[in-house]
């Protein structure tokens, strides 16, 4: 029992400590392509430490929801991350149907961010919330289709069951669909520009304009955990990690996450972001890719 709890804490620490590495790698890749030296890979850690020491500026208009939003959102994302199995290491909190909880936790995190954003009554944050929620309608459909295809293909409802074996014939479709969803859900180019200072063009950044200090640190850290979560999910959904020896499986998982991260950096380096009216088309494409993966899993003669 104690061992299980200790193991769980260890897994939690792993998620929390490793996550901020990913945005650092993305930025390094971008800097490398542009011929710059770029910020240190550990920059986000420094930023989080700095924000944690800072005070909070609170609007007199905002209710406690302004602070509760980031807190609940952070817990929801970290909870979702703990549900995910890690290749041969399996999951800590897995149970039958945990895949639904994962999806709902991600939705809860989004709800909390939007809630906190609307607390300020600012026009920018209102616009950011509208955009976030509109695009979420499409990305969530894509995630649902992807999860369904995995459930159908591997005949299970627990993440550990559906992620360990291969995704079968639909793997390529799923890879393309889930990578697009990863970019959209994590506010990366071509959907959003994490580096922009232009409030009118922001989605996610616009929603957190009025946050400062530790709540902002929680939001930024939560965002990095979310990026890691989606990378891990993508790699496990696509690669048959269960087919490898335990150590090799961990190696493949880590390698896969790194490749995904570098891929995000390369997309960001070489592509301009889309106009907002084009975004739904791309997201619909991602949904269709996942839907076809579902069809392949369903009709394509599952195991």
């Amino acid at each position, binding site marked *: 029992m104690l061992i299980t709890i200790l193991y769980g804490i260890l897994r939690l620490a792993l998620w929390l400590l490793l996550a901020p590495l990913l945005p650092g790698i993305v930025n390094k890749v*971008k800097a490398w*392509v*542009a*011929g*710059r030296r770029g910020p240190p890979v550990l920059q986000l850690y420094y930023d989080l430490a700095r924000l944690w020491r800072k005070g909070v500026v609170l609007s007199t208009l905002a209710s406690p929801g302004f602070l509760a939003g980031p807190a609940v959102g952070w817990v929801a994302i970290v909870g979702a991350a703990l549900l995910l199995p890690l290749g041969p290491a399996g999951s800590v909190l897995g149970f039958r149907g945990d895949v639904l909880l994962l999806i709902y936790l991600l939705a809860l995190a989004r709800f909390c961010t939007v809630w906190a954003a609307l607390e300020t009554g600012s*026009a*920018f944050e*209102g*616009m950011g919330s*509208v955009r976030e929620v509109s695009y979420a309608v499409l990305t969530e459909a894509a995630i649902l289709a992807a999860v369904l295809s995995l459930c159908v293909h591997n005949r299970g409802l627990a993440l550990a069951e559906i992620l360990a074996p291969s995704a079968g014939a639909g793997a390529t479709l799923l890879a393309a669909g889930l990578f697009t969803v990863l970019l959209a859900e994590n506010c990366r*180019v*071509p959907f959003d*520009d994490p*580096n*922009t*200072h*232009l*409030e*009118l*063009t922001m989605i996610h950044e616009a929603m957190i304009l009025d946050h400062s200090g530790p709540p902002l640190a929680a939001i930024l850290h939560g965002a990095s955990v979310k990026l890691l979560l989606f990378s891990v999910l993508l790699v496990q959904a696509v690669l048959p990690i269960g087919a490898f020896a335990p150590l090799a499986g961990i190696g493949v998982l880590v390698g896969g996450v790194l490749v995904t991260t570098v891929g995000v950096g390369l997309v*960001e*380096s*070489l*592509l*301009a*972001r*889309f*106009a*907002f*009216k*084009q975004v739904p088309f791309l997201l619909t494409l991602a949904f269709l890719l996942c839907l076809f993966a579902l069809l392949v899993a369903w009709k394509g003669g599952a195991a």
Partner: protein
Amino acid sequence: MNAADNLAPIANATSIPWAEVPEWPVADLVRVVADALTRNGRLCSWFGVAEPTAGPALSHAEGPALSGVEGEGAIRLVAVVAFDAENTLAVGRSLPFSEEKYPALTLLNHQAHLFEREVWEQFGVEPEGHPWLKPVRRTAGNAPANGEFFRVDGGEIHEVAVGPVHAGVIEPGHFRFQCAGEEVIHLEIALGYQHRGIERALAGGPHRATMAQMETASGDTTIGHATAYATVLESLAGTEAPLRAQWLRAIALELERLACHTGDLGALAGDVAFLPTSSACGKIRGDFLNLSALLCGNRFGRGLVRPGGCRHDLEPERAKTMLARLETHLADAEQAATWLWDAASVRARFENVGCVYPQQAAAIGMVGPAARASGLVRDVRYDHPAGWHRFAQAPVAVWSGGDVLARARVRWLEIQRSGQFLREQIATPPEGGIRDELAPAAPDSLAVALVEGWRGEVCHVALTDAAGRFRRYKITDPSFHNWTGLALALRNQAISDFPINNKSFNLSYCGFDL
């Protein structure tokens, strides 16, 4: 049209005795100018001049504020109209009047709308029938008196206020959007946050600080404004700068254009998150600025242009260095621009976004690259050549479409053509000195100088008093003509496309605010 209705013709960079400027009662001046504007005229400037009050004249020490720039007494209105196709300018003035109203020129021609608001703000003279009479840059307390903004009614309309404090390190200005969802129905731009009182400070001048003030009227157009100011003083002195100084000014002007256009192409790429061009252009802009530094020791060209000539020469040795470095930087710029034009994702963002139609651009009197991107062929270097541009010209860069892509394309065409111009001109310098002693300015004269800065037409008009000091000095930055174009470009566009539209114009706030 009888001869008495003609404005007095005048060439760019020349002066005319004040007494020879034809005068009409104000209502007739409005009619005459409106007529001129319908004959393909373009309103370069329209401003008020306070009449000296009867009795003991105010000395400059007592109040420069009252000597011609602002006031309550009788005023005259002065119009400067450009006939681009005929390569001439024309000036006219009204008889002094002290009524509080006159029939608005704006009703007959929209080009005058901001000018008339400015006159109303400075002299309290109301252009009767002006549809949107509110302050231009007057301050009330610590901020400009913005007045009421235009509002769109409707349950689904929401208002977005941006600025004056922006997220980037840029100048302050306030933008008020009326939106239906993501779509902009109307944009109103309120400026004045950088009003420093340059025109007021010039009354009774030139003063010791005047040259520095001119170079910073709009800091990124240092050469443009400094050249216009020097040209005004030279034409008032009845002379012109030595040929070699004119050559130096032309080179500096194109270097300024190269740096700003390159920087803006990079900024446009940055706004759509296209990193390759964005990163490269930031560096190449610096390279071009360093060429200005090679010429005069300052990256923005400060301290080069002076009335009577230039302060720094370009010796053959440095000219050779400059040519060699120019070739490298132009090749770099070519590469960065190729990335931009070749990226489908970028074209998708620029095409059919923020269109200003040729009729609109002409109606509001737009100038510079923004006007040329709407297919209007107007370029002071070509239409009203003065200085070195009488001997050497670059082809006018025109593109059709009026969208962000067209404005970006015109910038790129101008980079190429300015580059070619520099290659040819640096290699063939004229002989001679670079600076002459300037004779005193002619008394009671009006001088006009137009210069094609990188944003468009920089217009300086000076009126001297009996002692040859400035009685009135009017600066019209190209931004003054073009801000309205940005507002029009945003009609029915996505609000998220505002930044790329704004960047494609990249207008000056301080040049407008003065």
